[in-house]
């Protein structure tokens, strides 16, 4: 599943991601908000989910 959050400000990308990851075990997140990368790291630490950077403004997020 691809989740397009381009143009959205924090915390919307993370909120939308949290909703999406409940439905899909893997989500490709598109986000150009400067808070997304640090917040993905913190969110992963807090929730146990994992993520990797797969392109510019593009992240692969995997459910725990």
């Amino acid at each position: 599943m691809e989740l397009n959050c381009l143009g959205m400000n924090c915390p919307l990308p993370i909120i939308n991601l949290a909703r999406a990851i409940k439905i899909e075990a893997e989500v490709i997140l598109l986000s150009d908000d400067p808070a997304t990368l640090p917040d993905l790291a913190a969110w992963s630490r807090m929730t146990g989910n994992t993520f990797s950077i797969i392109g510019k403004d593009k992240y692969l997020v995997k459910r725990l």
Partner: protein
Amino acid sequence: MLKAGSVLGVGSVTANFQSESPLHPAARAFLTDAFDRGWADPAKVPQDSRQAAILRNEAKEIFAKQLGIRADQFEFLADPSIGFHLGISGLLTPSSTLYYSAVDRSEVFAVAGTAAAEKLPVSLNGQTAYPTAGKYDVLGWQAINGETGIRSQDPNGFSGQLFVDATTAGHVAKLPQGWSTALWNSKSWQGPSGLGIFAVADRSAWRNPLPHLDNQISHSEYSLPLAMASALALDAHVSEYRQNESRIRENNSSIREFLSKEIPDVDIAGTLESSVPHLISFSILYIDAQILVSELDRRGFAVDSGSACSSENLEPSHVLAAMGLLTHGNIRLTLHNTISSEAVQSFLITLKELVEKIRD
């Protein structure tokens, strides 16, 4: 028409947890008196220059005693931020490397941009591993972080020159052994803004990086009334802090406990043991800080935030990002000496209600 009280919305604040605190009553009383006496031009006050010298020396003695420096080691700065340049650049030689932390103030970053410099990473608990250094290398060492309240570990292992950023710490942190230059901001003890204290441990190891005519530390034309008012505020703040410290620590502890137990998914910066008791920063997952801050404000609680959505440039706090803490939903509290435990409890209950409402 502008009226007194109309700007600040006097009476609407149940508790002010913002770092920008009201001027200490001791400073306010002195300044009112000073202005009544016609001290409009700081360069010419008071008319009797001998009296001015006495007042200046009295103020200097207070700063020396409360900050742990000698009166001949420091000068006043009308612009505290220039102290970062004086303190760091004044220690650099052509062979120096400047080491600084990823959670340092942006003023340190600005100076680092002009020198051979290395930014040191920080861990999740806000600490930096200091490198082995040569005699002429310089470390920018922040005594206490202004956003998180975390104390930096002692830089004893660093063998180079040491610039101490005590702009948040004020009198609360002692100067580390081997310090070279140090900077304080009057605002940290509820003194007036527009006054910095800049100290040099040993003049022979420091060169004024600004164009200058003699070997004075500073040529900035500071305000003597502000320096006097700041000294009185510092004296009063030290004793009030001592009186209130254990209560403030209990409040900080109960805030941490409440956040851990009552609100799910809160990322708290550091531990109480690693921090000063009067500052705390936490980030609440899935919360827009801008909404939370304005809702709290409507209910009479003034707080700060380091989140991007509440900052002017829409950039998240570099401190939170460097530590790996959540940058959205961030709230920063300053537990001033005057804030009661009841106000803290009332704030926490309101916070929980608002978080549940916003997350819903």
